[in-house]
């Protein structure tokens, strides 16, 4: 029963990841693509990215984070995953309610730390529950990726300004320039959609890898669930994600293609690096820091109050997710004496 519950929650999480994907918002916001078309294209690309590019991150989270040998993993695995999934789903709901870019990566890792806090329940020690070297690797990715996003956006923004923009003298030239960049923007946005879906979906599909490698579900079932999870990512974007794309793309972001391309190019570089190293990074975090980078390149001020609020929400996510998953696990394993 608990396996079925885990699978259902895993699919719901994959759906939630798709629903919270705002990768194509810059493309919609800069007027490069109509919302309806962006949603359909985004859903297809997200499903493809989830299906083919998520394995590295999924394996990192699903099989390499928890130390299976430190306790009776098979006995508790499903409940551990249920507590993690419930926590992450709650964060996704909070994110959609508050409009804050709450990081699912932070919440899922925080939730695993919460699991480690419950080590005595499983007859082991906190320090033995997780592969800390793996966690260290992920945390370094968190710290480095936003700054890489900022730095690359600044560099691309500076180069565009220094070598191209200054040579344009009138609205006619500007129009031609932006139009040309739009083609590149469509390419970068689609590329990022596939890569980001690969990275983000890995966090949800990692659940299926975890169950598969532990022998809780057979190989065919694991593949089937990965396909179903990938489709759920696409469906999430298609059904719910359209509202986010509309809000972010049409209401919050009104940018020129030349700015959008700097942000998307920076995202592309960071996502390629992250996927190459199987690092589960926060796409939203990279996006926001890339926007800060482009603002710095243009000597524009950033809304520091808003930025602080976003950073606080990231920082808070980690301990709150840990407390949440620990609480759920205590309730299930301790309360029902499983």
């Amino acid at each position, binding site marked *: 029963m608990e396996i079925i519950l885990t699978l259902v929650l895993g699919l719901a999480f994959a759906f939630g990841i798709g629903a919270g994907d705002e990768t194509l918002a810059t493309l919609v916001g800069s007027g*490069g693509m109509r919302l309806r078309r962006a949603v359909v294209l985004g859903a297809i690309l997200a499903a493809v990215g989830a299906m083919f590019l998520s394995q590295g991150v999924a394996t990192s989270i699903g099989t390499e984070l928890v130390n299976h040998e430190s306790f009776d993993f098979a006995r508790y695995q499903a409940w551990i995953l249920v507590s993690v999934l419930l926590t992450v789903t709650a964060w996704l709901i909070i994110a959609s309610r508050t409009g804050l870019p709450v990081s699912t990566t932070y919440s899922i890792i925080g939730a695993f730390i919460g699991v480690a806090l419950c080590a005595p329940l499983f007859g082991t020690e906190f320090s033995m529950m997780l592969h800390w070297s793996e966690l260290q690797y992920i945390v370094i990715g968190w710290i480095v990726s936003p700054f890489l996003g900022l730095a690359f956006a600044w560099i691309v923004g500076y180069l565009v300004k220094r070598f191209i923009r200054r040579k344009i003298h009138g*609205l006619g030239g500007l129009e031609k320039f932006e139009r040309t960049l739009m083609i590149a923007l469509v390419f970068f946005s689609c590329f990022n959609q596939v890569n980001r879906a690969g990275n983000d979906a890995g966090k949800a599909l990692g659940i299926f890898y975890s169950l598969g490698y532990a022998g809780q579900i057979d190989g065919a079932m694991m593949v089937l669930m990965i396909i179903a999870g990938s489709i759920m990512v696409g469906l999430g974007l298609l059904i719910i994600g359209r509202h986010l794309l509309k809000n972010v793309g049409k209401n919050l972001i009104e940018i020129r293609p030349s700015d959008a391309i700097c942000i998307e190019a920076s995202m592309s570089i960071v996502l390629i690096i992250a996927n190459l190293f199987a690092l589960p990074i926060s796409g939203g975090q990279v996006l926001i820091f890339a926007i800060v980078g482009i603002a710095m390149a243009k000597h524009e001020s950033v809304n520091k109050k808003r930025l602080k609020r976003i950073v606080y929400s990231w920082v808070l996510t980690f301990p709150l997710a840990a407390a949440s998953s620990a609480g759920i696990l205590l309730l299930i394993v301790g309360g029902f004496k499983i």
Partner: protein
Amino acid sequence: MNQRKKQRRTIHANPGLQEMLDALKKQSQLTEELVKQACDGSDKAAIRVKALVSDVIALEKKIDRLKEAFIETLYAEKGFLPNIQKNDYLFITENIDEIADEIEIVARQFQIYDYSFPDHVKNDYISLAIAVNNTVVSLAEQVAYLFKDFKIAGSTWRKVQEERRIAREVSWSLLHEILESEVDHKKFLMLRALVKSLIAAADKAEDFSDSINALAVKYLTLD
């Protein structure tokens, strides 16, 4: 090539906008000619006045149609321009239309009243019409430069200011002359109304020129 594709291509290099500017320049030049013919006072000139009034009104209607077509293209399904630029294009077309409306009011004055100018004000009316025309033509050049070179658009702004200042000076002197004239009340009101409607077109052009200058500065300092 289908119509939509054609429209999409025409946004670039703004032939729609250029056509509006050309029509505005023509309308302003015809209005100068209209005042000159009205001041002539001959029978032949009177016929010419009627024709010119029709032409000026027709050009206002043409600008209206061009504006509608341009806005449709601007916000068309496949038309593309960054939103920030779209708003500026809309602002430009609306202002061109408003100046054309002001010029049309000048022509309408001739439609509703058969002007016979006192001799001592004729030259001032012609000077005013020339100054107003120069203001509008300079403005049209400034708008065209906005699409070619922001810096020149900024410097053309001074030319518009200067032409409008001349128009303003002439209008005050003309109003003084009218007040000093021995004309009946109705004629006085109509002569004054004509001065006011001529200077209103120059004032509107100057306001728009200020905004174009601001746009040029905005785009120059955008990055």
